[in-house]
């Protein structure tokens, strides 16, 4: 399997994207990967935030209009991701961070799909929606972090993951503290 990945990495296609001294090779694939991430994750995050009670004035059904944008983002990233993977298949295939990233994306996408399916359902099922929303949100943070650290070696990957968790805990604590102390008007606007 690894030798097959090596063979793919030695095709002219892979060599062009990896080594050609032009912004139209590897850099452009990375730009596409960033665009895909923005399309996919941000629309998903808005659906998550709406499920959690933020911007409740936004009609849920109307958010459906943005859903195709999300799937375009997933498509762009599947394609650009396969290209990026193929350039150095052996390194990536043996790197846990990549598999953690892909698993996190799978979890986030499945949760988001279930949230979308529930967009028109009555508010009685909101509790299940919140669980899905928090799961998807955590999965997106894990996916983004694991994806970014693939550029580093294992030790730095683990240290960065710990740093992200600690920072996230601080941010969540500040947000939770802030919304508890917010006056009724503020909380009402949020909820």
């Amino acid at each position, binding site marked *: 399997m690894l030798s097959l990945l090596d063979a793919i990495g030695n095709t002219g296609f892979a060599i062009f994207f990896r080594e050609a001294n032009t*912004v139209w090779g*590897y*850099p452009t694939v*990375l*730009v596409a990967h*960033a*665009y895909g*991430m*923005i*399309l996919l*994750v*941000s*629309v998903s*995050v*808005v659906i998550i*935030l709406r499920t959690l009670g*933020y*911007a*409740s*004035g*936004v*009609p849920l*059904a*109307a*958010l459906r*209009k*943005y859903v195709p944008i999300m799937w375009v983002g997933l498509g762009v990233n599947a394609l650009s991701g396969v290209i990026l993977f193929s350039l150095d298949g052996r390194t990536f295939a043996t790197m846990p961070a990549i598999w953690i990233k892909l698993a996190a994306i799978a979890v986030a996408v499945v949760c988001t799909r279930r949230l979308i399916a529930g967009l028109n359902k009555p508010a009685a099922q909101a509790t299940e929606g919140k669980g899905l929303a928090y799961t998807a949100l955590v999965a*997106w*943070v894990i996916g*983004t*972090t694991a994806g*970014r*650290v693939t*550029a*580093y070696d294992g*030790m*730095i*990957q683990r*240290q*960065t993951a*710990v*740093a*992200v968790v600690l*920072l996230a805990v601080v941010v969540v604590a500040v947000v939770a503290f802030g919304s508890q102390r917010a006056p009724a008007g503020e909380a009402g*606007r*949020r909820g």
Partner: protein
Amino acid sequence: MESVLRYILRWPSVERLIIAYAWFWPLLEVMHFVGIVLLVGIVGMFDLRLMGFAKEIPISSLRRLLPWAVFGSVLTFTSGLLFVTGVYANVEIHAYIILMNNTYLQLKLLFLGILGLNLAAFYVTGVSREVDELGVGQDTPTMAKVIGGVSLFFWLATVYVGRLIVWGKFTEGLTP
């Protein structure tokens, strides 16, 4: 001018953090990416509505999402500032030299300037108040469409040139 820029663009304390802790730079990168998703994604959805997409959503309700875009901008601006002021630790070239020579970084700052002016125009020209009064299904005025279009285009252009900074001049040694 040069000596002022040279002084304010290099922060030895940030450089020491980057050298002492290998995880500090990648942590900033993760912050930058999470911030981009919140900032560009939510502003982009707002821009699309200004341009006439998803008219079923009242703009005044979409505005409630903007604090999350502000949170995203805090993440990107903080991490971005630390990238610039600490870059010497990674490339051993003064941020001033990179700023004066790296076309991608220069374009990014230019685009951010245009976005700032565009945002000011949104509020100063009264378009912001005008679109707030629009209800479900109502189309936006031409000026709102122009401002939304300019914003969307230049945010995507900012991401594009921003991603390419590591392939510009004097940034060899930075992780792509």
